[in-house]
C-alpha cells in the first residue's frame, strides 16, 4: 500500500507559520547572467551601469529556503516536483543589498492527475530589505506524486 500524507493534520499543525529565515545578497554579475539567460534585453536588468539596475522581477522565485519543509513535517511519500510558481515583485531588488526571506507553508491539498494521486503544497517566501520593506513574495507549488505499491522502496 502506498503512503499518503494526512492533509488535515498538516493544515492544522503547519499552515501559516514561518519556519525558515534565510539571507541573500545579489551580485551584479549574478543579475546579468540570470537576466540574459532568461532572454531579458532591457538594460535595467542587463547593464550594471544603468541607474535603475535591478534583478529581473522573477528573481525572488529562485530564492530557496534553508529548510524545504518545517521541522517535524511528515516524510514525503514520493518525488517532489515543481508544479508552478507565482511571484509578485513589490519593489526593485538591487545588488549588494542584504535581503532576508521568510518562508511559511501557505496551502496543502490533494488531487488526481495524469500520473496518479498527487499532493500539492504551496510554500510562500516573503523577501524583505534591511528596512523591512517587502520586496517580493514568491509562491512555490510542489507536487508529490504518490508512488504506487509496486514502486515503493
Amino acid at each position, binding site marked *: 500500500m502506498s503512503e499518503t500524507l494526512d492533509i488535515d493534520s498538516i493544515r492544522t499543525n503547519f499552515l501559516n507559520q514561518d519556519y525558515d529565515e534565510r539571507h541573500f545578497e545579489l551580485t551584479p554579475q549574478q543579475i546579468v547572467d*540570470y537576466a540574459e539567460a*532568461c*532572454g531579458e*534585453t532591457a538594460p535595467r*536588468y542587463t547593464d550594471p551601469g544603468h541607474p535603475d539596475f535591478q534583478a529581473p522581477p522573477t528573481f525572488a522565485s529562485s530564492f530557496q529556503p534553508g529548510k524545504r519543509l518545517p521541522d517535524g513535517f511528515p516524510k514525503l511519500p514520493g518525488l517532489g516536483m515543481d508544479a508552478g*510558481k507565482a511571484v*509578485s515583485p513589490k519593489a526593485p531588488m538591487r545588488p549588494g543589498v542584504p535581503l532576508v526571506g521568510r518562508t511559511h507553508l501557505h496551502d496543502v491539498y490533494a488531487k488526481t492527475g495524469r500520473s496518479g494521486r498527487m499532493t500539492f503544497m504551496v510554500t510562500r517566501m516573503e523577501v524583505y530589505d534591511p528596512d523591512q520593506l517587502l520586496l517580493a513574495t514568491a509562491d512555490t507549488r510542489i507536487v508529490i506524486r504518490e508512488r504506487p505499491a509496486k514502486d515503493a522502496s
Partner: protein
Amino acid sequence: MTINSISEVEFGAELPVFEPDTGLANVKRFVVAAGWNGPRFTDHEAARKEGLPGALVPGILSQGYLAAMIHRWAPEALIQNVDTVFRAPLIVDEPCSISGVVTDIDEEAGRVEIDLTITNAKGETRVFGTAEVKLPA
C-alpha cells in the same frame, strides 16, 4: 512592435512570439546564477537516471522567459505578478515557443492582464499562466 503606453494596447492583442534559448549552455548559465546548479538541470544522462526524460529547464527559468517576453513587448512594463502552472516538463535542448495575449485592460489603473502559454515543438502546452502588468499612461 513594442508598446510604450497602455493606450497603445488593444484587448486581445498578441504579444510577439518568443522562442527562448533552452540550450544546455544557457540553462547552465542560468542555474549557476540562480543558485540552482544541479545535474537534474545540466546533465541529460544524470536526469534520465532520476527517471526524467532528460535535463529539465527549471520552472523558474520558464517563468523568467515569460517575464522577458513581456519586457520585449513593453520595455517599460512593471510586472506585478506572474503566476505559472507547470503542466509538463520543458526539456533542455528542445525548442519551445511562448505566446501571450492580452485578456484584460484597465486603462484607469494602468493595468493589463496577459495569458501566457509555453508549447513544445509538437504544440503541446507545457506551461501556462497569467501576468499582471502595469504600463505607463
